């Protein structure tokens, strides 16, 4: 992380003279008193996660649908999205700084880039795993290529596509903690500000975990609503 902890002077004084706080311990009272300072960073974090995953989903889905029809594109697009993913996050942010400047835009671009490999692969795998007989049946009924894609292939690939979105969401919650390096907000700045203070780390980390869980449940809910037939198969 950058620089030495800012803690020593300003924050420490702010915390008051509580001995638990002075020991950098886990202090419920302090948490209760200071909870409001986490509200804004939390919602920034939500924004920094939901927007990249949503935009990333649309881009990766479009690329996936294209590559599914022009299969020669699968290799290059796979390579490209994998390459994006392997750039370490600080490096990615630093690379983007000259282009997009400090702030949310840089963070959003970087985080969106990271979602690509996961979602793209799941789109491609999901579509490839649709049984050939289903596509054949659709053609045999007289569906055109586009009708087959949107009425049969995509719906059947949906569970796998949305599984990719869930992984991407969880990953993005974690990566968004670095967004502050690019001058964006989020819980990352809070954690870094007092990284040795247990109460702070627990609250900020806890909120991030909660966000990841909530997003996961949210996407899962969407998935269940969109694929009632899968439950029918079981029960």
């Amino acid at each position, binding site marked *: 992380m950058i620089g030495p902890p800012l803690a020593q002077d300003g924050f420490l004084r702010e915390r008051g003279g509580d001995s638990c706080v002075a020991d950098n311990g886990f202090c419920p009272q302090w948490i209760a008193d200071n909870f409001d300072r986490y509200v804004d960073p939390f919602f920034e974090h939500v924004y920094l996660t939901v927007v990249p995953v949503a935009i990333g989903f649309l881009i990766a889905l479009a690329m996936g649908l294209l590559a599914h029809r022009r299969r020669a594109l699968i290799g290059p697009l796979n390579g490209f999205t994998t390459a994006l993913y392997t750039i370490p996050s600080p490096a990615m942010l630093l690379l983007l700084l000259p282009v997009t400047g400090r702030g949310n835009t840089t963070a959003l671009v970087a985080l969106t880039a990271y979602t690509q490999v996961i979602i793209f692969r799941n789109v491609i795998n999901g579509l490839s795993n649709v049984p050939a007989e289903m596509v054949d049946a659709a053609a*045999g*009924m*007289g569906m055109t290529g586009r009708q087959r894609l949107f009425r*049969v292939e995509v719906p059947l690939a949906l569970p796998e596509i949305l599984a990719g979105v869930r992984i991407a969401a969880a990953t993005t919650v974690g990566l968004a903690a670095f967004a502050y390096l690019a001058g964006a907000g989020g819980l990352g700045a809070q954690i870094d500000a007092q990284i040795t203070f247990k109460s702070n780390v627990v609250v900020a980390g806890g909120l991030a975990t909660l966000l990841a869980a909530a997003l996961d449940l949210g996407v899962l809910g969407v998935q269940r609503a969109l694929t009632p*037939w899968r439950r029918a198969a079981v029960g």
Partner: protein
Amino acid sequence: MGGPAHSSAETLTFRDATKHYPGSPTPAVDGLSLEVPAGEICVLVGPSGCGKTTAMRMVNRMIDITSGDILLGDRSVKDRKPAELRREIGYVIQQIGLFPHRTIADNVATVPKLLGWDKKRITSRVDELLELVGLAPHEMRSRFPAQLSGGQRQRVGVARALAVDPSVMLMDEPFGAIDPINRERLQNEFLRLQAELRKTIVFVTHDIDEAIKMGDRIAIMQEGGRLAQYAPPAELLMSPASEFVEDFVGADRALKRLALQRVRDIDLWTAPTCRVGDSTDEVRRRIADADIDIPLLVDEHGHPIGWLSERGLTGERVREELRSRAEPTVDLDDILRDALSDLLAADTLYGPVVDAQGRLAGVLSMQVISSALTITDPGNVPAPADLAS
């Protein structure tokens, strides 16, 4: 009614149709020529890999014809847009191929939706079709395929293929994945349906018994996609055109013919009948004139009661003294195979035959059955000129 007016069935003609898959040394279907008359079922049968599916899928252009042609009515399928053509041809896919993510109603509505029918018309057509194939619409409509038994899925597959009342249906081993008892039921139901609908149907199977049962005509194909024989079932069993066909229909082809004939189709024996109280002299005269010398006692309605014993004829009038009851009785509408099986099971040589009202119509005997097997009925055998096709 939501359905369209019944479209009239069309004749389907294969004209030297050939499919050569690229990279394969021999054609999968080699110069297939045959005509399926409008409203008839043509069964394509043959060993695995002989080109049945390929031949069938050339009809709706799921596979492109390499050379030759296929005509629907008098139009070549090659002049049609594939997607349009396929919506006009009912297709029951090998392993059924229902869409697992769509409800039963939506599955059945697949083609009507592609054709842009309005909602009300679709709903009423779906219900009509489900009822037609023996499924309760209110119960089935909103289920998913995974919630149905194999037999029910099969019916939905047929309903889907019938959705826009196509003039031609293609059915690829539609009953292949179903247990024997249910298969028999579905076959019977389908034949009943077809008697009403009169579609032109190409039906693929590799089961010769199913072919004999379902087909108005059977095309036996052999390795290399060649047509070995094209004929109605009885003719195929009576006079196989080659050793291959003879082997394929099986050494029991004479027995299989029993499945094609009904009791009413053959000349039954007459039995001397009598009622209680008839004059025994009169009965003795009847015995002399009849095919069997055992009198059969019937009641006042003509229902058979049993075979009379000698003691029943000792007095002046017939008394009810039976040597055995009239069991089993055989229905005029039974197929010969089942009737024979009944006789064998009861360990008897004769079985009284009754009509729909239960009245005696004659007597079936082992000899009658065996002569039905050995005599080649000239009325049933087409002239040799018809054999070549």
